[in-house]
């Protein structure tokens, strides 16, 4: 059957900014879909507010709209583009929800846009818990007993009927936001109320708890002829009760017999058909009672998901790509399996390895957050590891996590909990539980006891027990001279670092010893078919297999790596590992660009990464993909096998940078800026000397090795000072301290962070404007890619600040100063590739805050704004080309404004204060584009899903220093007709400028106070800037309440001013949408006056 010819133009909606439960897996899916559809001759119109995505690169769609993902914006796009169809199943829950909104509002019908893949009614049946349950029961499937409630009274009644323990699940939220389980009335009441408030449709499901049951997922695909295949089966190590995004999971299923698995497969196909997903991929979750085998359907996602991305990486089957093709009418058997090319996509991948996924949490960023893992997802990223058994995959996964661990313990970093604490760590799911299991086993607790406490299947516990037993054996045989023990240890995933710890020798010594004994890994292929067919896609993982012997014959050569490619044409790019706060999709974007750039220049690219959510780990991206941990050992093994001519470490963020010096010492050919220069930029002493030599200025500073030194330095600099450990990304453990007490408290905690490195103390520049500069240099010249002015004052982490390109308040003179300083630094550090510099402007003085000779978080944003793929160029520069040769020798002026805004996970971490500081806490970003700053800023706010009110009530309460500015903002809001409510001091200031504000009491002034007001009245905007420690607690309550009620909350005066400008602009003219291609066309061919910013 041919593809559909009645549709020509297809609208794809992306998933927007990276948030918890919705990360770059949707860039991976969306990018695949765009490619797949264009390959078939369809025109693709794409909308996504997230600039740090590959899918929003202008070459991936015919028209790319970096615009807010809201019905209003998308309708404007539909009006401009007139697409025939909308494919709603690739943009995660965001894409699905907005597609449903578009359908509900009649926008799709009005403009004749057909939903393909899944129709609105199908989506509703899958997402609406009551309809889903009915459909399951009608199809003869078992589900947990449950009732739907729309009010708290209904919820209580349902709870009485079903009985505790119960699960409360709000309808239509992401990643289970607001859900929870309860075994008492108090918890139940709290969770049910929150769930009702958070659900778009005020609906919660009260359900029989299946906590502790075994949890499984199947990834299915269906075509329009009703052919169904299961792509991957996944088993959760953590039983029911922990969100699957927070669970360690394994593919394929380990503890079901064929009969049980096939029964589950039958059920899953029945679910697909009962829900009526026309075409594409779905994910279906089951719970199984470990005692009886009773199997219940938990839920389905009628779209590609985080699990489907994992399934794609785990099996080699490109679910999103195939889903896109099925949506336009192809049948499964009409599409080839890319990996074998000879067999069709209508099959079920078979694995000859074990895949383990481990979540990466970021609780260190949110010390006030509840660290328990529940049915609401809290992890910010994940790693995937492949091994020939569970033990190997688990240990590889653990050493991929970028938490400093070398595997499952045995690395000298085990915390050693006290007995009671250990039991607690086992009982209540948490980020450390896997390590707690190890400790319990080491201490001789029985597997049966641990099973009793954790409910983790005995099979997994025995596997972990085998690792623990091997740890003991290894420890008992230091420097074993027979290879057998090393083979055994390696086959259980022990790293050289772990073995080195157990044997009391350095990692590299173990490596030498191991290689001398001939114990080296083989690289096996992920080929969808367990070697049954020849595979053409080189996608590898390492494992340890003893080679067979050959007698009286020729035997078999085993797998060979990249036969025929001369090493001189091979370049290896080290990826960024798991997403975490401070290191996200932006670095993967840069790595992917390096691949594209180097491929275009005729190189064979080798990608190494451990993050299954990314485009970089799509087997279609690099010429060769290694799904491996980014550790010295694993990378050196690949270098041994591949012998690349160059290794790029500066694009994947801190993960590969941390390896740079060791790799170079081990003889790896690092290309780009020399590791020694990178070190010089990071080393405060060397850096200060450099700044002085260049005649630049930096905030007065010092380096402290002890608390006494830190105090002395701070006294000399005068408070406030900015303190941080050296070598950090994402502002880890960075703080502004205002007095000696604060400094001492900080030092006490900070020693844990980075014991090898000292603490840096800088004079903190108050009320300075911060500027980020991204530039590219080739050793001969340096060109500024973009200069970004922060909206918030210096001190707010650059990863969290809103930024404006080009700067909108700086004088040409300052800009030129910054530019010169950047060029001088690039020359001095002999930068080859990218460099990011942070400046602070105070008055007329320009200070250099930080220099990072590597890709920065803002590279994708800048590249999107100026229409030049900076990372691509940087990779080619590193491979030897010049900027002149590449045709990029001049800074690109743009005649419009691009605003970057950050997105935070505060709604996940109830009670955590949302104020911005030097510690980065945002998970993602959006971009707002317009000719005027006001509209661009407003768009960026809308794109973060925060409402931009055009009228209504504003609660305005600021610290004293902000009061003059607040008066001005208040006047502007008042002029637009907003009702203003303030606490005493701010109200008084407003009154002085003629603005009548309603006054409410502060919390300590007694009821009814501001919280009561916020709780009871309709407030459309909260502007609240933190005054300092004394009132922090009260303010925090205000801000938390605003977040939980979904009221936009601005915590800096600069942010409030920018938003006010945005509101003014929106009220004056509304906003228009424009494709990236059109903006870029304008950059290339500026038209006279349009070059100027309009306001």
């Amino acid at each position, binding site marked *: 059957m041919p593809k559909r010819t009645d549709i020509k133009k297809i609208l794809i909606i992306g998933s927007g900014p990276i948030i918890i439960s919705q990360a770059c897996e949707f860039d991976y899916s969306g990018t695949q879909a765009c490619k797949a559809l264009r390959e078939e001759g369809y025109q693709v119109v794409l909308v996504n507010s997230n600039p740090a995505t590959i899918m929003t690169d202008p070459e991936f769609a015919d028209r790319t709209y970096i615009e807010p993902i809201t019905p209003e914006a998308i309708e404007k796009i539909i009006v401009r583009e007139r697409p025939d169809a909308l494919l709603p199943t690739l943009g995660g829950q965001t894409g699905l929800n907005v597609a449903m909104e578009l359908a509900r509002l009649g926008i799709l019908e009005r403009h004749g846009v057909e939903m393909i893949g899944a129709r609105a009614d199908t989506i509703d049946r899958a997402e609406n818990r009551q309809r889903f349950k009915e459909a399951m029961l009608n199809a003869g499937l078992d589900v947990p007993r449950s009732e739907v409630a729309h009010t708290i009274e209904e919820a209580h009644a349902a709870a009485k009927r079903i009985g505790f323990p119960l699960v409360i699940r709000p309808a239509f939220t992401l990643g289970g936001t607001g859900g929870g389980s309860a075994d008492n009335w108090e918890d139940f009441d709290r969770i049910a109320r929150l769930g009702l408030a958070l659900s778009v449709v005020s609906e919660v499901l009260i359900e029989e708890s299946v906590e502790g049951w075994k949890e499984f997922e199947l990834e299915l695909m269906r075509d329009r*002829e*009703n*052919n169904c*295949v*299961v792509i991957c*089966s996944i088993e959760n190590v953590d039983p029911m009760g922990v969100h699957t995004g927070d669970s360690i999971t394994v593919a*394929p*299923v*380990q*503890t*079901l*017999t*064929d*009969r*049980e698995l*096939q029964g589950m*497969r*039958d059920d899953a196909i029945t679910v697909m058909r009962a829900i009526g997903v026309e075409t594409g991929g779905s994910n279906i979750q089951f719970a199984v009672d470990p*005692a*009886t*085998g009773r199997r219940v359907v938990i839920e389905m996602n009628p779209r590609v998901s985080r699990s489907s991305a994992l399934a794609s990486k785990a099996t080699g089957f490109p679910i999103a790509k195939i889903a896109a093709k099925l949506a336009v009418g192809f*049948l499964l*058997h009409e599409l080839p399996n890319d990996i074998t090319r000879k*067999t*069709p996509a*209508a*099959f079920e*991948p*078979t694995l*000859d*390895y*074990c895949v383990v996924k481990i979540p990466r949490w970021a609780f260190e960023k949110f010390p006030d957050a509840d660290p328990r893992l529940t049915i609401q997802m809290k992890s910010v990223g994940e790693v995937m590891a492949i091994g*020939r*058994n*569970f033990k190997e995959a688990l240990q590889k996964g653990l050493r991929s996590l970028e938490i400093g661990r070398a595997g499952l313990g045995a690395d000298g970093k085990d915390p050693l909990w006290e007995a009671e604490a250990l039991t607690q760590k086992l009982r209540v799911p948490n980020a450390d539980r896997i390590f707690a299991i190890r400790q319990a086993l080491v201490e001789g607790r029985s597997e049966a006891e641990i099973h009793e406490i954790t409910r983790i*299947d*005995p*099979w997994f516990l*025995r596997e972990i027990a*085998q690792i623990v037993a091997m740890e003991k054996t290894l420890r008992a045989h230091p420097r074993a001279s027979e290879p057998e023990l090393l083979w055994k240890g390696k086959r259980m995933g022990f790293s050289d670092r772990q073995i080195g710890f157990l044997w009391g020798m350095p990692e590299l010594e173990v490596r030498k010893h191991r290689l001398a004994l001939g114990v080296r890994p083989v690289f*096996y292929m992920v080929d969808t*078919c*367990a*070697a*049954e*067919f020849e595979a053409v896609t080189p996608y590898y993982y390492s494992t340890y*297999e*003893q*080679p*067979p*012997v*050959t*007698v*009286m*014959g*020729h*035997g*078999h050569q*085993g*797998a060979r790596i990249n036969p025929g490619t001369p090493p001189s044409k091979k370049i290896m790019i080290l990826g960024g590992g798991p997403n975490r706060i401070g290191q996200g999709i932006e670095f993967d974007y840069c790595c992917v660009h390096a691949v594209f750039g180097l491929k275009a220049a005729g190189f064979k690219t080798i990608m190494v990464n451990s993050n299954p959510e990314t485009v970089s780990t799509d087997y279609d991206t690099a010429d060769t993909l290694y799904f491996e941990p980014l550790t010295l050992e694993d990378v050196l093994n690949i270098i041994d096998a591949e012998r690349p001519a160059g290794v790029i470490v500066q694009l994947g963020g801190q993960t590969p940078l941390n390896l740079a010096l060791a790799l170079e010492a081990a003889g790896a050919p690092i290309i780009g800026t020399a590791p020694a220069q990178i070190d010089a930029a990071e080393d405060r002493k060397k850096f200060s000397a450099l700044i002085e030599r260049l005649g630049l200025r930096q905030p007065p500073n010092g380096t402290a090795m002890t608390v006494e030194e830190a105090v002395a330095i701070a006294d000399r600099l005068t408070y406030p000072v900015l303190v941080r450990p050296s070598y950090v990304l994402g502002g880890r453990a960075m703080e502004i301290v205002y007095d000696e007490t604060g400094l001492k408290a900080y030092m006490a905690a900070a020693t844990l962070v980075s014991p090898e490195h000292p603490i840096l103390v800088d004079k903190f520049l108050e009320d300075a404007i911060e500027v980020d500069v991204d530039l590219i240099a080739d050793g001969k010249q340096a060109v500024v890619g973009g200069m970004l002015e922060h909206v918030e004052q210096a001190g707010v982490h650059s990863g969290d600040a809103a930024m404006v390109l080009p700067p909108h308040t700086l004088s040409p003179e300052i800009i030129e100063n910054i530019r010169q300083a950047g060029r001088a630094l690039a020359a001095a550090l002999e930068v080859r590739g990218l460099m990011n510099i942070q400046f602070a402007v105070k008055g007329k003085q320009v200070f250099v805050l930080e220099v990072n000779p590597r890709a920065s978080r803002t590279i994708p944003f800048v590249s999107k704004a100026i229409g030049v793929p900076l990372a691509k160029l940087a990779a080619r520069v590193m491979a030897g080309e010049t900027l002149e040769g590449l045709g990029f020798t001049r800074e690109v002026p743009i005649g419009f404004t691009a605003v970057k805004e950050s997105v935070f996970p505060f709604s996940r971490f109830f009670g955590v204060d949302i104020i911005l500081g030097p510690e980065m806490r945002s998970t993602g970003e959006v971009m707002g584009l317009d000719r005027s700053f006001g509209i661009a800023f407003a768009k960026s706010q809308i794109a973060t899903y925060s409402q931009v009110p055009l009228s209504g009530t504003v609660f305005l309460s600021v610290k004293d220093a902000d009061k003059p500015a607040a008066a001005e903002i208040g006047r502007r809001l008042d002029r637009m007709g907003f009702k203003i409510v303030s606490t005493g001091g701010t109200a008084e200031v407003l009154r002085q400028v003629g603005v009548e504000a309603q006054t409410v009491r502060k919390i300590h002034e007694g009821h009814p106070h501001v919280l009561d007001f916020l709780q009871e009245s309709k407030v459309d905007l909260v502007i609240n800037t933190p005054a300092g420690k004394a009132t922090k607690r009260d303010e925090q309550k205000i801000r938390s309440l605003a977040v939980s009620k979904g009221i936009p909350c601005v915590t800096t005066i600069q942010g409030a001013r920018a938003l006010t400008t945005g509101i003014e602009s929106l009220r004056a003219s509304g906003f228009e949408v424009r494709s990236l291609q059109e903006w870029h066309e304008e950059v290339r061919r500026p038209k006279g006056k349009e070059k100027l910013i309009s306001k």
Partner: protein
Amino acid sequence: MRKGSPVAEARLALEDGTVFLGEAFGAPGETVGEVIFNTSMTGYQEILTDPSYKGQIVAMTYPLIGNTGVNREDAESARPQAEAFVVRDLSPIPSNWRQEEGLPEWLARHRGVGIQGVDTRRLTGLLREKGFLKGVVSSAELDPKRLVEKARAWEGLSGRDWVAQVTCAAPHPGPAPKQKRFKVAAIDCGMKANIGRLLADSGCETTIYPASTAAATILKEKPDGLFVSNGPGDPEAVPYVIETVRNCLGKLPIFGICLGHQIVGLALGGRTFKLKFGHHGGNHPVLDLKTNQVEITAQNHGFAVDPDSLPADAVEVTHLNLNDRTCEGLRHKKWPLFSVQYHPEAAPGPHDAGHLFDRFVRMMETGEAP
């Protein structure tokens, strides 16, 4: 091998000179056979007990085996049938609510030979490249050279009657249906237990006959239909079964599975040939040429029917393997007869093709060609 006892070494030696080192499990001993790989990730118990594996050494491509132990329900016959079992990692414990015994204990009890620690991916690549190889698994003899010689000395699988070793001794009733609608005669070439169960579920009262039973004996009992079962080895090596089926052609509705399908093909005048390394797994896509539906099927065969050898006027190829385009099913245009190369009874494998038992029943109802 009991827990705590020292690990016994074992070898898997192939006729091409490759010798894999590993550890013995199950019973000690030495066996020869044709080495094949199976790509099913679950269902090792069904595979081990499937009589079709007689004469073969089965290597599992999925590396983690034994996780769910064994149980009575999932047995396809009363004992392990494969000559030897080759795995990468044997699970130290079984974990499943239905398990009754660990795989190694069960295998040992039935004198079955196993080897673990083998790089089964490497083995698979080798078989893919070279085709079927003769091999020997041994914990008795460890010298690589002598073992390779033993593998080479073995006479091989083709041309020999393996059915005689696995068929039943005397006619006996299959599982009783809840509601009897039809009387079916089943020729047991090594019939899997689940076929009997599914026939019963479809309302068939089945009598299971030894493979050597003559057509007259069967016809005398006036069954409503004839079923020809799966089984091991080379279909041309069991001319007596082909003869029986030929004598029933046009007289009874006939349904054949796997070896039964090959025998039906031969009885209809076709030829069979040996595949390079066969189909053994649970993920083979088969296209039903009439409905355009794709079924994911369980497969286990080394031989196949040559579709061009079949009389085109009377016989039609109905199913195609989408991986290698080989014939997966045929039907007669006039007589009530069809057969499939794959396993609609699954066990192990997906249940997509289970409806073929209904097709057999419909044929018996109408007496018409399927």
